[in-house]
């Protein structure tokens, strides 16, 4: 794990912050986040504890680190930066906070960057095994919605389900999947190559707004299933409607604690045959509830 994290994250740290590179390598097996704050020591957060380094981060360190993350080309990540994060090779996400500059109500730039939150991505192959039995009915896949609050493993679960549906799973024959990866978190595309395994029959529309990406995939790639993360906007509802009219199956996720938190406009149309709710009571990706659509009602299945 250390070698992967070193190549994808730690090697970008300038020599003035080299303390982080020299830490005990075992720390990286359980590290979840690296928090870099201006005027503060770097903090590495593991699942149960935090480790603070001694060096205080100054303005120059912060700018150098951001430049290194963008490969010395901040303009190349400008649109991501304006959304508050950039994605690194490997799917690691660097959240950015600072003073935003607004133009026409939209963030045009972020100056005086004061905090970076580097979330370490981990691919958990096989994490969807418990869910697959609920969403495949006699080797048929039906529209599925995965619901959970942030940090409960929605994206990890989605990625693994996509991989299984794309490669084929037990009796289920692999399908062509169109994956819209708006924030490069699912496939973690780097120079056109998915860094995470999303299956052999998956076409990825990377860094593209969800509803636009879904429409483009419907028109151009003839997917049997469309998958995307964190739906919720009005435009998404329209794209979902168009996909179902085109006979395409859907695998989507949404933020929420349970089924009642999801927009009525989406749920009342009864598009989804399966709704899986995740929690992290004991571990991320734990199933809290599975609902099945029966006689126009969502019935708790487990």
């Amino acid at each position, binding site marked *: 794990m250390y070698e992967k994290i070193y190549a994808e994250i730690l*090697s*970008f*740290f*300038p*020599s*003035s912050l080299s303390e982080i590179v020299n830490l005990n390598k075992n720390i990286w097996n359980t590290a979840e986040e690296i928090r870099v704050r201006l005027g503060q020591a770097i903090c590495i957060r593991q699942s149960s504890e935090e480790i603070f380094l001694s060096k205080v981060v100054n303005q120059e360190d912060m*700018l*150098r680190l951001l*430049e*290194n993350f*963008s*490969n*010395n*080309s*901040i*303009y*190349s990540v*400008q649109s991501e930066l304006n959304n508050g994060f950039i994605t690194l090779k490997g799917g690691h996400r660097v959240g950015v906070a600072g003073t935003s500059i607004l133009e026409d109500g939209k963030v*045009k*730039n972020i100056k005086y960057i004061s905090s970076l939150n580097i979330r370490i991505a981990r691919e958990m192959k096989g994490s969807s095994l418990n869910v697959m039995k609920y969403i495949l009915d006699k080797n048929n896949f039906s529209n599925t919605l995965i619901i959970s609050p942030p940090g409960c493993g929605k994206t990890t679960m989605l990625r693994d389900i996509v991989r299984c549906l794309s490669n084929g799973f037990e009796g289920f024959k692999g399908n062509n999947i169109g994956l819209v990866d708006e924030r490069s978190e699912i496939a973690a595309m780097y120079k056109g190559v998915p860094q995470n395994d999303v299956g052999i029959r998956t076409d990825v529309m990377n860094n593209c707004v969800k509803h636009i990406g879904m429409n483009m995939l419907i028109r151009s790639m003839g997917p049997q299933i469309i998958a995307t993360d964190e739906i919720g906007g009005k435009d998404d509802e329209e794209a979902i409607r168009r996909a179902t009219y085109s006979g395409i199956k859907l695998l989507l996720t949404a933020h929420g604690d349970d089924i009642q938190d999801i927009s009525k406009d989406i749920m009342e149309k009864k598009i989804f045959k399966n709704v899986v709710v995740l929690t992290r009571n004991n571990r991320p990706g734990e199933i809290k509830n599975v609902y099945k659509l029966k006689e126009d009602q969502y019935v708790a299945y487990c």
Partner: protein
Amino acid sequence: MLLTVKIILLFSIFGVSTLVGYLISNRYSSRVKELQDLITSLELFETRINYTYDTIPECFQYIAKYIEGSVGNIFRRTAEILEDENNLSAGDCFKNIIDEERYLLNLKDVDVETIKGLSVSLGQIDLDSQIKNIRLIIHTLNNCLDQAEEEKKKNFKLYRNMGVLTGLVLMIVLI
């Protein structure tokens, strides 16, 4: 024997004089060529960042593929160093490479200072500002190119002929 030595010496003097004239005149045409290469490189850079959002090392490697010689070498070396170096900004790296390659270039100081202008905030600003900076430098380099072409027109043949003529005059004087 003495005559043979004298003839060899006279022809050597003629050869050296012609070569010096050739080298001086060649500097004028090389300056024009290098300025044209720099302008083409910056135009390629602008196109790449505008349409593909490629990073600076990717853009510079792309430029180095199409632009040969000393100018292409500046972009290639900058890209290579940026790929490995985490303590240097793109601007500082580009400026350092120009300083290191300066002795291989036929550019005048004003040309070098102009292209060094690219290093200001290189990779640290948004796309629009980056493109504005590139266009400003291309504009200034075009002015340098006009001046360089004028000087080439005036001096290229002059120094080339002067080298040959000086050689001939020295030969006649020494006979």
